[in-house]
């Protein structure tokens, strides 16, 4: 016996509701899988960071030996300048080399500071430091930090002036300083900079 129109409509509605429910369930499963995938990817990235950091430590130890070697060789070359018989051309070349070496030693010192800052940030990422310790680590390393301006842009190139209990005082190259809550300040540090401090007047 043929079904009435209202019965057929009700059957269609029920089938639709069933389909919607199935789709929602599948979507929920997919979201869950995505979240698990994201968490795994994040954990993998953290592992990679720790491995890279270990490799960089070795690189720095080797570089320290290069610095000692260069320092010794340049010291000997510099000592030659005491000899009055050295021709002017050689003298100038040695002096230029001494200056170049000084520049490279400075660069190496700056790389050490960057490494310290990164170590602090990676340790913070792994939850190994308290918020205040994280700030302390960035301040000790003289790291460039990020500050959210009132314009809504995240600006790089700031430095930490003071690490207070729950607040951080930061300043920029223009001498402007700001006091911000520590937690809020730390939340800005892992984000992409949208503007550098020297790109616009403060």
């Amino acid at each position: 016996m043929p079904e009435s129109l209202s019965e057929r409509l009700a059957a269609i509605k029920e089938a639709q509701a069933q389909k919607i429910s199935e789709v929602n369930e599948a979507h929920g499963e997919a979201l869950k899988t995505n979240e698990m995938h994201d968490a795994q990817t994040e954990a993998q990235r953290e592992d990679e960071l720790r491995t890279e950091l270990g490799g960089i430590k070795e690189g720095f130890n080797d570089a320290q030996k290069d610095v000692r070697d260069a320092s010794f060789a340049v010291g000997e070359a510099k000592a030659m300048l005491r000899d009055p018989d050295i021709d002017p051309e050689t003298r100038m070349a040695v002096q230029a080399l001494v200056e170049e070496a000084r520049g490279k030693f400075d660069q190496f010192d700056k790389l050490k500071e960057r490494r310290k800052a990164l170590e602090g940030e990676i340790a913070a990422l792994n939850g190994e430091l308290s918020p205040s310790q994280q700030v302390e680590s960035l301040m000790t390393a003289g790291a460039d930090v990020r500050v959210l301006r009132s314009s809504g842009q995240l600006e790089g190139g700031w430095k930490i002036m003071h690490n207070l209990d729950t607040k951080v005082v930061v300043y920029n190259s223009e001498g402007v300083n700001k006091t911000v809550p520590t937690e809020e300040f730390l939340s800005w540090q892992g984000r992409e900079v949208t503007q550098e401090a020297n790109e616009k007047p403060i």
Partner: protein
Amino acid sequence: MAKNTAVLKQDLEALKQDLINVRKSLVDISKRARKFKAVVADKKKMSEVKNAIDQAYKNIK
């Protein structure tokens, strides 16, 4: 605290590359400094030999 591992990885990669470059420069500086030392020592030796020859020539005369 919202940390971005991708940013840290980029920073680490950049640091690694800069370290490689500084190391290359340091090795190059060491080589050039030693070369200067060798060249100056050679020049000095040559000058001493020349003086000795000049002196011997004078003595013969």
